[in-house]
């Protein structure tokens, strides 16, 4: 039982990371129909921005700040203007191909221009273990969990409590209608890209002490976030969070109690089941155009 609780807690910490990545993925998808297959690499990259800044002599906190700014510029603005905008009008597929190419580009770039070796990364909090009702949790996991929760709550407040947020949601749900209502749709779309950039930067800084900064970290993270987003509900921030947590916990439980060789399979099976039985996701709204 203690072990079960242990798995639950660790799973939550991992799930929180997936959630963080999945949320931005979902936002961008909603507002611009962009399925970003490079999302994993988006999480991999900011850690290298931090390291580069620190090599240039910046203290960690400054490096982190720089990294977030650079991420907003590159993974937010540049990504939208240079990659997404030119191709939006051609439908989903060319853009999918393009983001796949982009993921390769970022991976290889980090490898060739920084290093192929995993890089140690400064921890936000001193590593220590805390015992909670028989389950041991590292302070790092707790930090991840805390920051993830704060971020997501803040994001929810932004989306539901502020005028800006409601405008963004309107854009996400029906951009034509939003345009008629005089909402600056273009700007709203850009904002979601910026938010995504910030989220991945935060995620990157959170996980790199555990994952280490490595060029191919995106491979697993991207797919995980992707699955989390769909399971939870492609068009709901809440859903993405639920999906992330389900994924993290499920992975641990299946590995411990069913099969470690097939641990990767269970999320996929659930994914298929969800799509077939409830395509809008567990918490998602029905999208007429997709069914």
């Amino acid at each position: 039982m203690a072990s079960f609780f242990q798995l639950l807690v660790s799973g939550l910490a991992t799930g929180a990371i997936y959630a963080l990545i999945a949320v931005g993925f979902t936002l961008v998808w909603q507002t611009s129909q962009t399925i970003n297959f490079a999302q994993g690499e988006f999480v991999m990259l900011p850690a290298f921005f931090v390291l580069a800044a620190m090599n240039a002599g910046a203290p960690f906190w400054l490096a982190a700040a720089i990294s977030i700014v650079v991420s907003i510029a590159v993974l937010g603005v540049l990504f939208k203007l240079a990659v997404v905008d030119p191709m939006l009008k051609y439908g989903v597929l060319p853009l999918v191909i393009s983001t796949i190419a982009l993921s390769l580009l970022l991976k290889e770039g980090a490898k060739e221009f920084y290093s192929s070796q995993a890089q140690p990364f400064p921890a936000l909090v001193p590593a220590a273990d805390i015992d909670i009702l028989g389950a041991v949790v590292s302070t790092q996991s707790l930090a991840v969990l805390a920051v993830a929760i704060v971020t997501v709550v803040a994001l929810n407040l932004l989306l539901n409590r502020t005028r800006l947020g409601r405008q963004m949601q309107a854009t996400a749900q029906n951009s034509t209608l939003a345009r008629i209502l005089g909402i600056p749709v273009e700007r709203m779309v850009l904002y979601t890209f910026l938010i995504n950039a910030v989220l991945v930067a935060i995620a990157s800084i959170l996980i790199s002490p555990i994952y280490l900064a490595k060029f191919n970290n995106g491979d697993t993270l991207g797919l995980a976030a992707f699955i989390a987003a769909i399971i939870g509900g492609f068009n709901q921030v809440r859903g993405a969070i639920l999906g992330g947590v389900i994924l993290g916990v499920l992975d641990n439980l299946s590995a411990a109690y069913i099969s470690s060789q097939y641990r990767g399979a269970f999320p996929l099976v659930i994914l298929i089941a969800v799509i077939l039985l409830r395509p809008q996701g567990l918490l998602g709204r029905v999208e007429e155009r997709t069914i």
Partner: protein
Amino acid sequence: MSRRALFAPLIVAGLGLANPAHAQSTVYIPAVLELSGAGAVSGTNFRDGMLMAIDEINAKGGILGKKIETPVLDTQSDAGTSRAQVQKVLDNKPYVILGPVFSGSVMVDMLLTQQAEIPEIVGGEAAAITQKGNPYVFRTSFGQQFSMPKIANYIRDGVKAKSVAVLWVNNDFGKGGRDTFIKEMNARNIKVAADISTESGQADFSADVVKLKAANADAIFVYVNEEESARFLREAKKQGINKPLIGETTLLGQKVIDLAGGAAEGVQGHVGLTVDAPNPAVQDFAAKFKKRFNYVCDHNGIKGYTAVYFIKFVTEKIGKFDSKAFAEKAHGITITPKDEPGILMEASWDKNGDIDRESFLGEVVGGKQKIVKVLPKLGN
């Protein structure tokens, strides 16, 4: 469609003439390695070690007065691509071929190099590679069929364990080691209490540690890559595993020790090829490597480095660039640091192309790897 007709000259250009004819003043020793994809870490280590040796040798005038010419071709960690690249270099009549590291790719390429009668010095550690009776394949590190028995003996005699749990990474490196290990365990009738596969790149080891605790074996053998080793050790410490943790080379590497924080304390095991070996030549190499590429080289780096000196020594013995003669001479040869400092440690090659060299039993004490015993070469 007419597009393709238009491609015609390009294709010929792209395929026919892509391979530049190499000059007479150089010897063509191409390398086919995993520079992108899953094997990129091993591949780049191998490449960097190799390049260091080549530069040293070329600086001293090369082999038999010829400079070494070594283009490095990426296999993308894919067998099909690696086969294509090996074919590509074979088209230019190489003297010897270096790499690849992935055993799967090696298995494909061996067939081609054997047909072309070109020696291939590979980084793969799968037992099967040298058991196919292929006279053109050589290794510069222990095959798993040599390292695992040493571990097994240690677990029996050193740890005196009656049962053991195995944690391995589910790729061709981990699976190969796991299979050989379990064979050796059965041979010594030590019970395998748990057999746990993990994914490469796995971040959360809590489930695996929970299972290990449940298995409650006398010892735990861990056979995963560096970053995963570190993550596992942290989780093991977190959940308070108190059984001896046994590793093979990787787990006791300085890099893992640093990454794992204090969690690596007390880890013990067999140390094959490693920059931590208590040997001035190796230490010196490690320092040079770190200085030039500014990362700590793993055993693949040493594989690549020694491979080049292996070629140099054998070639100078036969006194000409003759691939067949090389293959014949290399079997059963012994190289001492006295004859060739670049070989770092005395090494011998058997009739299968497998290497034999002394190795160590180590333990992590005070955040450093401490060698507790030197295991002599099997040969003597």
